[in-house]
């Protein structure tokens, strides 16, 4: 290798190292700290967990005190399992509903005249200009008994008594679909807008009805957008804390809320960390498998 080439190679290695360094500093290090907490015991004094780390001399002792007790506790308690399952189910439902609403929306946007598209895009991201919290609060006003929804439906004579949607699972679903819909629409729009229209003409030319052409050309070619959108909706939905807290009732126990309670109400940081780690595994494992399946 010539000297300039070697220099370039060294440089490119350095450049590649930057994102790794970033990940190491801001992702792996905090993760290691949380993992360490998860394997520690609750303590009454601050910081509320033991063992403490006091220099490398006591490293062996420190390590020997780490254990999987919290993980065992988590596995044995049905409360945690139920809330994990409920979170996954609600996130799954949110994703499906967001897909069902988002796909036609993105499709219409991509089919709209070119000069209309930027306006439609702005409309999709417009809600982000107000605080997330305020928007969820607004839903309380809409969904509560005698709220906006009841007033409209009652006024139209469609319902005779209040719907009592607030503090139910349905309210949580409405809130989550509303909040995460743009994350579904945007990647879908990006793939659908790129779709070569002459492919649909070719399909029609070869005898495909419009529905057939959609199923055999548009849908498979928009799969990357569907997967990206689904991941962007599903992942934050699983750990969602604010929406179930504000819109859900006592039956809606999502894992994000459990996490909050462990951290701030029970002040059991080790158990809370365990909950967080398990959540991470639950989320990362299927994604990693998916990635491998796609590469294979």
């Amino acid at each position, binding site marked *: 290798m010539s000297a300039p080439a070697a220099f370039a190679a060294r440089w490119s290695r350095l450049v590649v190292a930057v994102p790794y360094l970033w990940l190491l500093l801001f992702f792996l290090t905090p993760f290691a700290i949380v993992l360490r907490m998860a394997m520690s015991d609750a303590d009454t004094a601050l910081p509320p967990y033991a063992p403490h780390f006091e220099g490398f001399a006591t490293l062996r002792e420190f390590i020997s005190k780490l254990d999987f007790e919290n993980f065992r506790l988590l596995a044995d308690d049905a409360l945690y399992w139920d809330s994990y399952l409920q979170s996954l189910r609600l996130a799954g439902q949110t994703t499906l509903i967001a897909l069902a609403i988002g796909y036609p929306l993105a499709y219409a946007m991509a089919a709209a005249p070119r000069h209309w598209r930027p306006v439609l895009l702005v409309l999709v991201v417009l809600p982000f200009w107000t605080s997330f919290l305020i928007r969820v609060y607004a839903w309380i006003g809409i969904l509560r008994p005698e709220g906006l929804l009841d007033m409209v439906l009652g006024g139209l004579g469609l319902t005779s008594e209040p719907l009592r949607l607030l503090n139910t699972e349905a309210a949580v679903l409405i809130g989550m679909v509303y909040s995460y819909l743009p994350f579904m629409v945007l990647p879908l729009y990006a793939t659908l807008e790129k779709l*070569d229209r*002459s*492919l649909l*003409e*070719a*399909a*029609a*030319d*070869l*005898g*495909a*009805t419009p529905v*057939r052409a959609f199923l*055999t*050309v548009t849908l*498979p*070619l928009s799969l990357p957008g569907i997967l990206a959108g689904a991941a962007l909706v599903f992942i934050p939905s699983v750990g969602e804390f604010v929406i179930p807290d504000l819109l859900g009732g006592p039956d809606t126990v999502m894992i994000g809320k459990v996490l909050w309670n462990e951290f701030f109400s029970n002040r059991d940081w080790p158990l809370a960390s365990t909950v967080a780690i398990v959540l991470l595994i639950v989320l990362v494992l299927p994604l990693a498998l998916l990635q491998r399946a796609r590469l294979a």
Partner: protein
Amino acid sequence: MRRSSPGSLRRAFQPWNDPNAKPLIEFRGVTKRFGSVTAVSEVSLSLYRREFFALLGPSGCGKTTLMRMLAGFEQPDAGEILLDGVDITAVPPHLRPVNMMFQSYALFPHLSVADNIAYGLKREGLPRAEIARRVAEMLALVKLDGLGKRRPDQLSGGQRQRVALARALAKRPKLLLLDEPMAALDRKLREATQFELMDLQSELGTTFMVVTHDQDEAMTMADRMAVMDHGGLVQIGPPDVIYEAPVNRYVAEFVGDINVLEGKVVAVEGDLVRIETALAGMVELDEEAPALSIGAAVLVGLRPEKIDLSHDEPAQSFNKVAGEIWDIGYLGDVTMIQVMVGGDSGRLIKVALTNRTRRAARPFAWEDRVWLSWDIEAGLVLPR
């Protein structure tokens, strides 16, 4: 450069001259507008079974639009399109027995080559075994055996073009539309593909309509061609007729090279026409049944390969003019010589000399004083 029509082998095939022949496709006064642009205006055209038809014209003259109306992707604003005598104007694309090879090929990127070819057959609901058989047949036809499992992005440009062709042919359409089929190929491949397409067409007996802006391509392949300009058809005919008897200056200049002289008709005796030109004096030419009146202002067209060059003054008393060589362009097969006629501020006339030997004595040089002369059969009259 090929100037003669390959159709000479198929002289007997002239359904357009047969009053009893029923056209496969008929355009009747078809017009298509996009906003204020009239892409196709008042086109009437008949295509016959087994015909290889070429649509020739500059970019933007409406060739693709005309073809897309035939495939059903655009609706005419006026007029009708008939297939086998039946108006198909209202039939949606997926129900028309017409297939199109797209300019961009439009291959499905998520399907293998075999699945691309099978796509149309599956829509017909053919049995699996039959589809497999037809796909294999098509792959063999376009010489892509063994590449059925590849994805389009794993193919070269020429191979992709063949897949697009096979996919469009698989359904055995009555009419195959090809929109600039060779535009993305390099020259050698393009020439080879032209002849392959012609073989394929005569083998299958499918009617082909090819859109192109390349006159050599149109002349090589077509039984008949139409020259388009600004959405209208200017002339329809076999390539040799279009080349040797263009109806106007536009066609004459678009198809091949031509020198054009302004003149005035001074005598018409039977087929013989005498035209007085400002630049080259008296020009005499042979025109079949000329409908020219004495004194009419006309143009005389002279193809460069039909002009002779000499240092000495030719014996004939007309069809000659003196000039000075301004430029010599060696093109391999021919040498294109530009002669300035009528003084330094006159006109450049192009003359093409065939290079018959490898090391010719180069009889002509820059600034030579030379005589141009031509046969009575060389010139053609064009309306001014």
